């Protein structure tokens, strides 16, 4: 009995702060604080402010008041807004598909034993390395209504008789900016997929060759399925980059002609800063969120480890 009583005497409790600092969770929380502050200041605050602004009639130079869904109701009836949604979807879908197809093709080419392999791999990265504004200006010249090199070549060949008005006509302007975006985005897709291809052992293709697969079957039944996890990551990022693109359009067309190339990002900026309607611009930006969420959800499900990826190596 005496022994039990001795054990029951409570150990003197240490001060609360000390206990907190010495506990695993307390210390962890402390270490995460800097990152949390950073995220709050530079991510949560601007995002929250943007969402809030979307519910006000703030203009530049005037603090706004809460107006509820008025901005959204206004946008709902605004054909220019709907045009920008249409443009953004076309831009994203067409450019992403093109970037995927061309990037995969390029990656497959680079994965072969070409002479000067390293040189080509470095060159491929150039469009990605060059600042967007710079490459956009180059495209601005390429698409110039009078001095375009494309028009010049086609005219020399006798295909056309007068220069193409690349950025002057709504549909040619759309295709032109898409082409510029694809040019710029291919390196990211190609190099990432190349990295993925190099994780696939050569012996798998050899085994497939012995098993009787044609080149096309090796690609569809071995290479492509093994590449899907990487394709999911790469294309999610590519879609997000494309959907939120701003610089290229702003340098090339500023949304013209007649809003034919206005994306949601450029329209939001146009209305908010030069137009001064901060509330309305913010509402357009907030309207992008559902689309981006959809893309993230797609990646969430696409990135889940497939059954064959589970287990040890």
């Amino acid at each position, binding site marked *: 009995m005496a022994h039990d009583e001795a054990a029951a005497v409570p150990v003197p409790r240490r001060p609360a702060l000390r206990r907190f600092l010495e506990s695993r969770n307390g210390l962890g929380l402390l270490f995460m604080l800097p990152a949390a502050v950073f995220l709050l200041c530079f991510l949560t605050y601007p995002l929250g402010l943007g969402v809030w602004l979307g519910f006000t009639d703030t203009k530049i130079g005037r603090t706004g008041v809460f107006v509820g869904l008025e901005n959204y109701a206004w946008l709902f009836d605004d054909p220019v807004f709907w045009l920008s949604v249409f443009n953004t979807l076309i831009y994203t879908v067409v450019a992403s598909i093109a970037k995927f197809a061309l990037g995969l093709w390029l990656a497959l080419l680079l994965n072969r034993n070409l002479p000067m392999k390293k040189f080509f791999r470095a060159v491929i990265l150039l469009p990605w390395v060059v600042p967007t504004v710079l490459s956009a200006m180059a495209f601005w010249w390429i698409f110039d209504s009078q001095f375009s090199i494309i028009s010049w070549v086609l005219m020399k060949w006798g295909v056309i008789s007068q220069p193409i008005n690349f950025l002057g006509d709504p549909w040619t302007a759309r295709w032109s900016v898409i082409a510029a975006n694809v040019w710029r985005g291919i390196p990211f897709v190609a190099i990432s997929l190349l990295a993925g291809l190099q994780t696939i*052992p050569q012996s798998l293709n050899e085994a497939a060759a012995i*098993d*009787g697969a044609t080149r096309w079957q090796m690609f569809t039944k071995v290479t492509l399925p093994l590449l899907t996890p990487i394709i999911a990551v790469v294309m999610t990022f590519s879609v997000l980059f494309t959907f939120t693109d701003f610089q290229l359009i702003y340098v090339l067309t500023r949304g013209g002609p007649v809003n034919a190339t206005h994306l949601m990002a450029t329209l939001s900026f146009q209305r908010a800063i030069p137009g001064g309607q901060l509330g309305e611009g913010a509402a357009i930006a907030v309207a992008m969120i559902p689309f981006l969420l959809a893309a993230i959800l797609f990646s969430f499900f696409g990135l889940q480890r497939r059954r064959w990826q589970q287990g040890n190596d």
Partner: protein
Amino acid sequence: MASVTIDGLRKSYGATEVLHGVDVDIAEGEFVVLVGPSGCGKSTLLRMLAGLEHISGGEVRIGDRVVNHLPPKDRDIAMVFQNYALYPHLTVAENMGFSLKLSGVRKAQIAEKVRPAAEILGLAHLLDRYPRQLSGGQRQRVAMGRAIVRDPQVFLFDEPLSNLDAKLRVSMRAEIKNLHQRLKTTTVYVTHDQIEAMTMADKIVVMHDGIVEQIGAPLDLYDRPANLFVAGFIGSPAMNFLNGVFGPDGVTLADGTVLPVTDAGAAKAGQQVVYGLRPESMALGGDVPLTVEVTEPTGAETYVVGQLGGAEVTGVFRTRVTAKPGEQIGIRIDPAGIHLFDAASGARLSH
């Protein structure tokens, strides 16, 4: 089943020739092991049989077909790779049936072919698993299963056991040999491990630097190695080599020790020779002096490393050796373990 004929086969990468004309005849149903140190060209040779490497010169025939220019899938062969090369995104059953699926065989028929192969290999309960969920030995079996399902003319194995641990390697060795006895399919097996070669082969092809050094049954190679390379490569521990001069009394070593020779063969008096001595042909109780350096008792046998005529030799004794390091013991040499080679060419002199 088919025979395989390799006739004057050459391979070069650019200006570098790695196979300098290899001739091997493989009979129907034979289990042939290509063995040699790394870089000897054995894997290249196998890949040329498979059609994965271009043939620079010579001819490969499977049965009576010249297959030099046939793609792998038309050669009617199956290959087991060193890293197994299982398709990670397919189940065991799908891996095994992949070749049938490619050739458009119906699902029910594929299952009919996969099941017996899986049963032979003890994989029947694993058919729905993915390769990642299997152990090394199980993956190895799936790779063999994939080969069996194809029912090919020739099996090719490229160092299939080198990724397994020592214990598993021994049991898989027996399993592969057993499998060959059941299926009787012509098999070409590449390894760098002479023990694997000795235990599994009907016929061993010893390769070195892109040429064939010797072809023969395992024990023929052991008993009558054609040259110094084969003598040193086959057998574990390796044969001891002692340099000396051949004379009427035997071989005189550098320090004057004279070793007996019963089968001089083509050796001439005064010729510089290499006296090859199998470690296991030594026994205690003779008049050849051996200065003990290290003794390694393993229970059944005792390994003794010591100095004989100024060179280091290893002996394997069936009896227990109690001599301490530095002591001299007298040994007796079994004439069957003595091989004479020409010092200059390395060619065998004994009959």
